[in-house]
């Protein structure tokens, strides 16, 4: 063993250093210094001076397209460091620190992360210092304390060019509930307001946006629809492109091609929103409730950064969290409800059925008797069902038991490589029952379906998850009803709130004449 370090040879590797000198109140990176001047990493410069814009500078339009409304890293910009520096010195680029410190605690300015456990330190060869970096958004390129975020400084006056002829090409009709909401959305967009559309699962909330988006596009405004899930981006893009055939639509998700497209209408995952900075006049956020609270904070940061200072904000959800519901009740939040589905039938209401200590039954390779009976009934009648379970780990226990009942039963979870195929098999009715974790709680629609949850007391089944799960049932005009059973080992508040929410929506719909009494 010879680990002694007395005669170690230490040679510092010469690399291009990302340190800056302050010359004539401008930051100059070390490689561009003409004479040797002391340099400091960006963290040690208290302010980043912002040179005034030189209107006679002939700027690079490609660079403008790339950086307009964005916040990108040096690594994302193909131009030379000389050209980037020239744009900065002529007042066309906004430079911001990637990591800022408040009371010595780091914050990632791109994703808003402030949790200490999501930061790490490394000896950085770019600035030759110990650099703190954000691990939360590292998949989009590392932001560390020597990183700068680059944005284009826009000239608003030249930017907005209103259209004169109509851009909307849609011939459908809105239900009365949708019509009310649509008018409200237009008004919110006109007045740059914040507005919540609370529409039950299956109400048809996308159509509610068309008029509002149309209005914004006619004004030459940039519109963004953000959603947590890639599936939704993929589904919405062709739909909106068909509705606005002459408008350029950018579709953004991990690995998509449109990353640097500068479009009038952007449809993006909330994750990709992190690359935007003061970009949108109208921001539409779909499925706000799809996030646990901790994630929601990060999302709020991304949304706030992506919006222009003066802009409208539309939230769409079937299940606002309790904080939002309270704000609605107290009149602190502007909102509209669409309490009924377009087919005018009430929402099916879940049943609660106590099933005892089902964990214990599972240990003996059994399911509670009433659960078995529920499944048996679906098998006998041949009606398709989704069977929700709280954890992936339960699949190897549960699936073999169910397979004994019927061969056409499969299980699916988030990391399942065959997820798409299994959902497809369910659609084509090759499968009778699909066992699933909460990944199928939203988005998927099967026409004639019953739903059960095993262990609805698990904390993964939040109020909004439960409402969404119930919302899978009775979506189509042909089959507007179905059974929803929550098998539990102790009722939870979330279960009760979810059921009350559904009942309240039905009551409101009835009062407003949006459903027909059966």
């Amino acid at each position, binding site marked *: 063993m010879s680990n002694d370090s007395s005669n*170690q040879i230490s040679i510092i590797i010469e690399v291009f250093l990302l340190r800056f000198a302050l010359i004539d109140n401008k930051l100059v990176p070390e490689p561009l210094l003409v004479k040797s001047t002391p340099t400091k990493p960006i963290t040690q410069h208290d302010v980043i001076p912002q040179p005034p814009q030189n209107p006679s500078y002939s700027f690079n339009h490609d660079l403008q397209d790339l950086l307009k409304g964005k916040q990108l890293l040096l690594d994302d910009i193909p131009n030379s460091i000389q050209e980037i520096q020239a744009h900065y010195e002529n007042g066309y680029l906004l430079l911001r620190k990637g990591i800022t410190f408040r009371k010595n605690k780091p914050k990632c300015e791109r994703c808003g992360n402030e949790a200490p456990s999501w930061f790490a330190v490394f000896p950085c060869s770019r600035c030759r210092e110990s650099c703190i970096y954000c691990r939360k958004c590292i998949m989009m390129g590392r932001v560390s304390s020597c990183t700068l975020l680059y944005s284009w400084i826009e000239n608003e006056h030249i930017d907005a060019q209103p259209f004169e002829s109509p851009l909307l090409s849609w011939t459908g009709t809105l239900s009365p509930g949708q019509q009310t909401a649509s008018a409200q959305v237009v008004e919110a967009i006109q007045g740059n307001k914040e507005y919540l559309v609370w529409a039950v699962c299956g109400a048809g909330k996308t159509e509610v946006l068309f008029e509002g988006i149309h209005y914004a596009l006619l004004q030459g405004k940039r519109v963004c629809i953000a959603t947590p899930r890639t599936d939704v981006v993929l589904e919405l893009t062709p739909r909106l492109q068909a509705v606005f055939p002459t408008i350029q639509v950018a579709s953004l998700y991990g690995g998509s091609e449109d990353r640097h497209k500068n479009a009038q209408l952007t449809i993006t995952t909330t994750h990709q929103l992190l690359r935007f900075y003061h970009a949108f006049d109208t921001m539409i956020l779909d499925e706000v409730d799809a996030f646990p609270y901790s994630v929601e904070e990060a999302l709020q940061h991304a949304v706030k950064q992506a919006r222009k200072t003066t802009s409208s904000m539309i939230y769409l959800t079937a299940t606002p969290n309790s904080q939002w519901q309270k704000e609605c009740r107290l009149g602190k939040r502007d909102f509209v409800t669409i309490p009924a589905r377009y087919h005018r039938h009430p929402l099916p209401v879940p049943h609660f059925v106590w099933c005892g200590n089902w964990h214990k039954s599972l240990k003996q390779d059994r399911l509670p008797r009433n659960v078995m009976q529920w499944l048996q009934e679906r098998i006998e009648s041949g009606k398709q069902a989704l069977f929700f379970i709280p954890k992936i780990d339960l699949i190897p226990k549960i699936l073999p038991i169910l397979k004994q009942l019927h061969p056409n039963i499969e299980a699916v979870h988030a990391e399942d490589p065959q997820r798409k195929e299994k959902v497809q098999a369910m659609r084509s009715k090759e499968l009778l029952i699909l066992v699933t974790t909460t990944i199928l709680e939203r988005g998927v629609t099967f026409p004639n379906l019953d739903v059960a949850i095993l262990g609805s007391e698990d904390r993964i089944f939040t109020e909004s998850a439960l409402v969404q799960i119930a919302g899978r049932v009775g979506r189509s005009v042909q089959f507007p009803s179905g059974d929803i059973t929550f098998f539990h080992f102790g009722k939870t508040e979330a279960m009760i709130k979810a059921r009350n929410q559904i009942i309240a929506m039905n009551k409101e719909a009835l009062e407003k004449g949006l459903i027909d009494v059966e």
Partner: protein
Amino acid sequence: MLSEHCLFCHGEMGARVSWACFFEEAEESFLCPSCEAQLTEIQGETCQICCRPLEKLDPQYICGDLCYDCVRWEEDPEWKGHLQKNASLYLYNNFLKELISQYKFRGDYILAKAFSRKINEKLRRIEYDYIVPIPLSAERQFERGFNQSEALIREVGLSPAYLLQRTHSEKQSKKSRTERIHIPQVFELRAESEIKDKKILLIDDIYTTGSTLRHAAKILMQAGAKSVMSFTLARG
């Protein structure tokens, strides 16, 4: 603060309280049990030079206790005997691929810690004078902000010796095996006088064809090193 969450999946680690806590010094762990379980340590019979597991190898590619690749290297007078032996810690499975890609391509430096305990255990059994990271080109080093092999050394608390540097940049992953072997010498020496009669241990993240390590070994042996061995995190 760090070990409350798994470094890779960021799931909560959960307190593992057992009698061992009272008697043994708790081992610091950075991966949760379910991530840790997805790493496969190399065990059983391996090629005596490159550490490739012989178990899963088609017998026609095994010659005694060597794999056919190493036999070919050793038959070639230009390469014979330069790399005395390689040791690798894990099989380069899909999980490790993901981990290493996050570590070096995304630049998530701290993942080096996830391996340090096991690396330390292995390195203790190897005798050497200098522990040398495979260097990166200046461009690559700037892009990543660190050298992934150097970080593995630093995170076990050792000091790397910078005996080598790249002559020009080459993207290895885009080349075929023949191309990789026949590229001109990619390394040059620094501090040549220090090398004579020294036992050198090279560190790299992955052993794929062995070409990188053999190029490094060759130039060190030609400069008078007593022996060159290598250690890699993964064996591809």
